[in-house]
């Protein structure tokens, strides 16, 4: 599932990522695209709390967060 929140600022990137994690079925991974650096501080703690792993990939001033469910 892709969540493109580029152009959105706090708290929306985090809220939409959490929404996606709650909606996700099975082992589906979630890709969050953001250009809002503070989202890198807010999304990972929420993901950990909901039992997800986070990998962050930077491409210039945009970031791709890949969220996968912990086994």
């Amino acid at each position, binding site marked *: 599932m892709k969540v493109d929140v*580029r152009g959105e600022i706090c708290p929306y990137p*985090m*809220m939409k990522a959490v929404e996606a994690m709650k909606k996700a079925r099975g082992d589906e991974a979630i890709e969050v695209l953001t250009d809002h*650096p503070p989202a*890198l501080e807010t999304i990972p*703690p929420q993901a950990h709390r909901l039992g997800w792993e986070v990998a*962050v990939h930077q491409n210039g*001033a945009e970031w791709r967060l890949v969220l996968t469910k912990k086994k």
Partner: protein
Amino acid sequence: MSAEAVSTRAVRQGLSGQTLFGLLVLVGATLLGLYFRARLPGIALIWVFGLAFGFVLQRGRFCFASAFRDLFLLGEGRVMKGILAGLFVATLGFALVMYTYSPSIVPGRVPQGAPVFPLGPATLIAGIIFGIGMVIAGGCIGGNLYRMGEGYVASWVAVIGMMVGFSLIGLTWNWWWRVAMETMPRVWLPHTLGWVGGVAVTLGAIAIVFLLVIWWESRSGLGSRPPPALPPGRTLGDRLAAMGEGLFRRPLPVITAGVTLGLLNVFLYLFSRPWGVAGEVWRWSDWFAGKLSIQYPELLGMDAVEGCHVGSSVTQGFFTWGLLVNGGIVVGSLVGALMAGEFKVRVPKQRRRFAQSLGGGVLLGYGAGLGLGCTLGAFFSAVPALALNGWVFAGGLALGALAGIQVVRRL
């Protein structure tokens, strides 16, 4: 790719285009500083403070709005802990500065520059209005200023909203002053507790709030996550690269950022007066109102209060104290964002986000006008000045953030 691999790659990338551009802006800012030094010796140093504030805010991703909002929205106190750390060091520093300015405690008087305001319902209401505004606009006044430097177009819109809000408070100020401020006491803790008591109570209260935040975080199931360490350096080059990475490319740890902002605020008070950004935006609003031939009544009580209001800037022609602080924040943040490769012109995709920024901005302007300051002037500078109004304003901010969350959830 692990975080370590990412950072190693970033170190090896060396100077990117944005970094070089950031250095160029820094050189330009330095030249401008030399011009100020020649032309405005009284306030030239303020430019350096502004730049430093902007750089640290940007590098620390230090957002006062998120500090209040995320406590309730996420059960997370990351930035709030940074703010509290900053308040702690600033309290010690401000006490020394205030003691230097006036060692003896005179009833009814406070040291110069200390933001001790009439404390009453208006203080709380101002905090609530500002708190709602900062959550809706996605940042407080200072937050939107440094976001301007990072390339957020919506923040420029928010500043326009603020100017509208300041105009509205200009038109209604006298009513507020007569009804809810004029007769209210100005509570400065040393008046009743003495120097040591005032400082001790403030530090104790900050420590208690810090513990409450940690309790709140653990209650909501958030553990602390230490950031991944940088790869160990062997050669001098490796180590310098790692240092540069830590300072310019990685986000600054939030406690470090908070303490640095607190210390900068102490030195700024020592050189002139405490940090605040709202009065200058109010002045911009006033300037535009003048151009549009909007007439304000004479604002009552302004000569009797310190803090951030339309007449509070030290004026030297076009360049004022506040313009150097606020302009410095924008440019310092631009430098920080470019150095980190994080600058980008960001345009919201949804039109309603512009309306959101504008509306939030109006509330920010109105709240900061009524409160004689924003999260910086009426809170981050008021609590360390041992002013009780700083705590009440903060309570209003928390209530407002709580209300603002209900609004943003529906937008």
